[in-house]
């Protein structure tokens, strides 16, 4: 018997429900379940769908939080940074150039050990003002101490938001986390999502406790005084140690998530699809997983053993684990929905990272890079097949170009 569909917020606190909601709405529901205290907003497509859903929850009296519409993204991220410093659980987000406008605030957040959770509705950077997905926005903070995770469906968006709060607010980590949701493909697509009961969420997610770092009259501290080179390396090293502890906390958190919610994500860092007997694999992030998986199934029928590895956590990057996995195959193709102009082999950011991860490995299969789906361009089944054919040829020892643009008019 099919479950009854109910609006996501009108629920019995004890029971799980299924709702038809978008990826953005799933994140908004997670904010409600996580009982977020302060949310700041400034509209930019496609992130603005989240702020609309949150605003609706607040105005309907279903969610109790400070909801502040800032005058721009820079203030938006500064406000939640300060709210988090006094002990509030916070949520924020943006897209494309809005995220870039917040860059100064994004830069200072990790060093202050602010466990902010943000949603990036991935969008191409201007110019031109395209609305569609490109991953360069979120990836711009990859070196700064932000934890970065990519999801590929609305259920995973909701679950990952809850997981992100627990990981970010773990005292061993205390670093911000951005959840990347592909613009349009995820932010605007409705899917059936299991919404967990409040009781399960409460069992999974403890209260945010900032301890001796909380700005409070009973704990008089100064935060972020000006410091010079005598201090800076020690401060960076401390921030780095938080990131170093993050993988262990992520593993722990996914294990608890499975216990409490009964849903398993396997290896938290990357998903493997039909890799057991694969000769070659494609690697990518986000919603391009759907055409890739379908194309793989079709190619399997033709006897071509292609698999797929979908990277979830880009920061921390599970280099050793990923290198071990990828070392099993005869060739690897990395699909980047981003660009890194002038980078090694003119490749994308993910391809460059994967190549670096493989370097110390004893098994280093040929790596073929692809730039695809920029600005929200569809990655089609023929595109996936074309990429797969190229890596199959690489597996046969026929050298392929280091980087190829896919789906380009030429």
């Amino acid at each position, binding site marked *: 018997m099919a479950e009854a569909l109910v609006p996501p917020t009108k629920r019995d606190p004890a029971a799980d429900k299924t709702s038809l909601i978008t990826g953005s709405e799933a994140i908004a529901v997670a904010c409600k379940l996580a009982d977020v205290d302060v949310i700041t907003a400034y509209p930019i497509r496609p992130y603005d769908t989240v702020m609309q859903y949150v605003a609706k929850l607040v105005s309907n009296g279903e969610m109790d939080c400070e909801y502040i519409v800032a005058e721009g993204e820079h203030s938006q991220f500064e406000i939640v940074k300060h709210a988090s410093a006094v002990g509030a659980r916070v949520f924020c987000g943006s897209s494309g150039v809005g995220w870039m406008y917040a860059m100064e605030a994004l830069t200072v957040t990790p*060093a*202050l*050990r*602010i466990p902010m959770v943000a949603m990036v509705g991935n969008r191409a950077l201007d110019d031109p003002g395209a609305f569609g997905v490109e991953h360069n926005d979120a990836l711009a903070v990859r070196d700064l101490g932000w934890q970065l995770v990519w999801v590929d469906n609305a259920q995973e968006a909701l679950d990952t938001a809850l997981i992100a709060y627990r990981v970010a607010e773990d005292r061993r980590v*205390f670093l911000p986390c951005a959840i990347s949701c592909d613009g349009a493909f995820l932010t605007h697509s409705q899917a059936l999502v299991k919404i967990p009961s409040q009781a399960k969420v409460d069992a999974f997610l403890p209260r945010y406790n900032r301890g*001796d*770092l909380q700005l409070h009259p009973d704990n*008089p*501290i*100064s*935060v*972020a*005084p*000006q*410091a*010079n080179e*005598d*201090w800076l*390396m*020690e*401060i960076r*090293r*401390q921030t780095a140690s*938080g990131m170093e502890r993050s993988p262990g906390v992520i593993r722990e958190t996914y294990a608890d998530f499975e216990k409490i919610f009964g849903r398993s994500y396997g290896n938290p860092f990357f998903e493997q699809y039909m890799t057991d007997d694969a000769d070659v694999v494609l690697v990518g992030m986000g919603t391009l997983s759907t055409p890739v998986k379908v194309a793989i199934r079709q190619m399997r029928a033709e006897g071509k053993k292609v698999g797929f590895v979908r990277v979830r956590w880009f920061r921390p990057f599970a280099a050793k684990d990923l290198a071990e996995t990828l070392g099993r195959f005869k060739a690897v193709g990395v699909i980047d929905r981003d660009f890194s102009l002038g980078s090694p082999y003119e490749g994308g950011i993910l391809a460059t990272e994967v190549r670096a991860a493989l370097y110390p490995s004893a098994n280093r299969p040929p790596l073929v890079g692809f730039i695809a789906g920029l600005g929200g361009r569809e990655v089609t089944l023929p595109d996936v097949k074309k990429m797969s054919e190229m890596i199959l040829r690489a597996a046969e020892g026929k050298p392929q170009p280091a980087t190829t643009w896919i789906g380009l008019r030429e």
Partner: protein
Amino acid sequence: MGRLFAVEIVYRGIFQKNLAKNISRAIVLAAHKEGKPGISFGRYGDSPERNGIPAKSFAIVATDDVTLEEGMAKYEPQEVDVTISVDDTLCKGVESWAWYGLQPINRLLKPGGTLIVTSLEGPERIIEMAHRKEHPYKLAIVKGTPSFSGLWVYKDDHTDARIMGAIAKVLPELFSIGSVQEAIREEDKKNGELKATSALRAFERTTTVTVAPAQGNNETPYAFKLPKWTEMREGIAIPAIARGHQMTDPETGAQGGFQPERNATFKKYLTRTMRPVVNFDTCIKCTLCWLACPDSCFDVTPDGFYDANMAACCGCGVCEAICPVEKCITMVNETAFTDNASQWEAWRKEKPAYESWLVATIANRPERSHGFRYRGQYEEQVPDVLKVAQQG
């Protein structure tokens, strides 16, 4: 390897930044006249460039390029041939970056190196201010007040040229007075000849005295250890300074008033070129100095007076300007003081002695250090300084 020369110029941030840069540039240009390569650089930062905060410029010169590179491989030289202090109050020590602690003015001097100071004081007072050093060094004084030469609209008073003349005298291996003059003429086509004369006069007049290890300030400069990264609180969070406490009257033992707790590691002893001297007998307890002080340096005493605490006073002079009672607060040059003790305690303990100390101290009030008493005062003084430069 050839010979490496290092010269540091210790100055007060903002006011003397260009003067220091002009000196370090002039050193390199004069040495270049003799075929020696060199570089001139400063340590920049936020704090060191604030008003009056001690800061440094450096000139590194060598007899050849390879040797120069050896000197350039360090950000700051570990030892110098000459230290130049363009403000004599800096001879009490340098605290340019808070967590470095206090650096004696002569800390980097090599054995037998020379400290050149611009001052109206004699060598005895300068030696008394500077910390003791384990080996002998030399002291040369170029007569003058702290110069603002090179700062924005302020007029040139030839301080840089005179320092150059003094260097040629104390370290002839670096460059000759001829090279100094040649470089000055080339840099300044308009006033070069006049400035070259000032350099020559300084060269002729400069004499040195040798400072023995037993001479100088006996205090151990305050210092502290920087913590390891694992010992620091995370999140760039530092504990606040505690609130404060009552004060005790040294005579009666009475408790009262309020002394705020202050930063245990960053003192303002050396950011100051002058300090307020308070006449407690004429003070009307109006609170204006206490309210107006930007550094909250005034302690409230049990008997309701306001005592400028020398750990917190940066010498700005706002209290003197705002005090409604004539000569109740007078700013006096730092060279007049040998310690940082409480004036109120001295007054409480022995009023007649305090009164005579007060009268004598204020009588010797200098015309200025870095604080000007009225607009245009500096411009008025430049002709006098130039006269000293040309004649002696």
